[in-house]
């Protein structure tokens, strides 16, 4: 695969993403009025929820790329799966950290083991393990195979985790949460939310492209080392 066109695409996507993020920040901090009951802290919602959606999307892409890799054996798909998983973990971390910051003043607690929160945490753990596995395996077709298997297994697990936690939660009464979020956002809030959704999506695409470019560069460096018959320097 040629790097240059992707490099250009990543640069364009980055410019678009920064524009969209600036627009989204204007909407969040200037345009949209303060939420009446939750106050200013509610403003994190506009980045928190899109980040959650994008991280799920990223893990889904990792799953699809893993399946496609095992069928076609194209290196590009392995790269896509790895990049998607890594960026999914980045957004998932954003979700897991901004969540409690929002939850503490609103619910009075940092964390509750409800189905959504727990599933997100388990998802994060699965994909961190996926990235760790990749880091511990020598680069090559074998790593791609093994990682793809974990990518598939991990994603299949998600609905079962969600179901099991929901079941578990009905056994133990949890604190009542989520009064009205989503259920009837005011029009200007809904608009702000949509703008933020688009902005975070643009950011995701830009990061994904950049990550793929870097991985292709790594491939090229490895290839050049082989060609020059020089042992690559040891990296941790």
């Amino acid at each position, binding site marked *: 695969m040629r790097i240059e066109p992707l490099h250009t695409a990543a640069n364009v996507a980055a410019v678009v993403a920064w524009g969209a993020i600036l627009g989204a920040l204007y909407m969040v901090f200037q345009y949209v009025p303060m939420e009446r009951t939750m*106050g*200013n*802290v509610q*403003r*994190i919602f506009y*980045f*928190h929820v899109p*980040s959650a959606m994008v991280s799920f999307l990223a893990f889904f892409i990792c799953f699809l790329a893993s399946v496609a890799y095992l069928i076609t054996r194209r290196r590009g798909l392995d790269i896509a799966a790895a990049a998607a998983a890594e960026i999914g973990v*980045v957004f998932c*971390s*954003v979700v897991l*950290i*901004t969540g409690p*910051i*929002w939850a*503490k*003043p609103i619910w009075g607690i940092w964390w509750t083991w409800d189905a959504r929160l727990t599933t997100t945490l388990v998802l994060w753990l699965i994909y961190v393990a996926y990235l760790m596995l990749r880091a511990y395996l020598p680069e090559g077709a074998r790593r791609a195979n093994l990682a793809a298997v974990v990518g598939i297994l991990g994603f299949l697990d998600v609905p079962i985790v969600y179901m099991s936690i929901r079941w578990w939660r009905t056994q133990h009464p949890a604190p009542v949460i989520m009064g009205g979020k989503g259920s009837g956002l005011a029009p200007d809030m809904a608009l702000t939310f949509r703008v933020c959704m688009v902005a975070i999506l643009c*950011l995701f695409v830009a*990061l994904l492209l*950049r*990550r793929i*470019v*870097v991985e292709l*560069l*790594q491939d*090229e*460096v490895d290839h*050049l*080392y082989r*060609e*020059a018959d*020089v042992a690559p320097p040891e990296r941790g």
Partner: protein
Amino acid sequence: MSPDKFLDFLFAGYGAFWTILFGYLGMIFSRQRRLLREVEELRRELSQRKG
């Protein structure tokens, strides 16, 4: 909770977002810079050998 505390939480929330984003960007771009340098060095080395 008082409004200024709410603001603290607000900035803490977006602060977390920026920290993670810029941390990751820093990681990616430092790696990219290193790789680009390596590509350049190796290419020079290879062309010198041929020439």
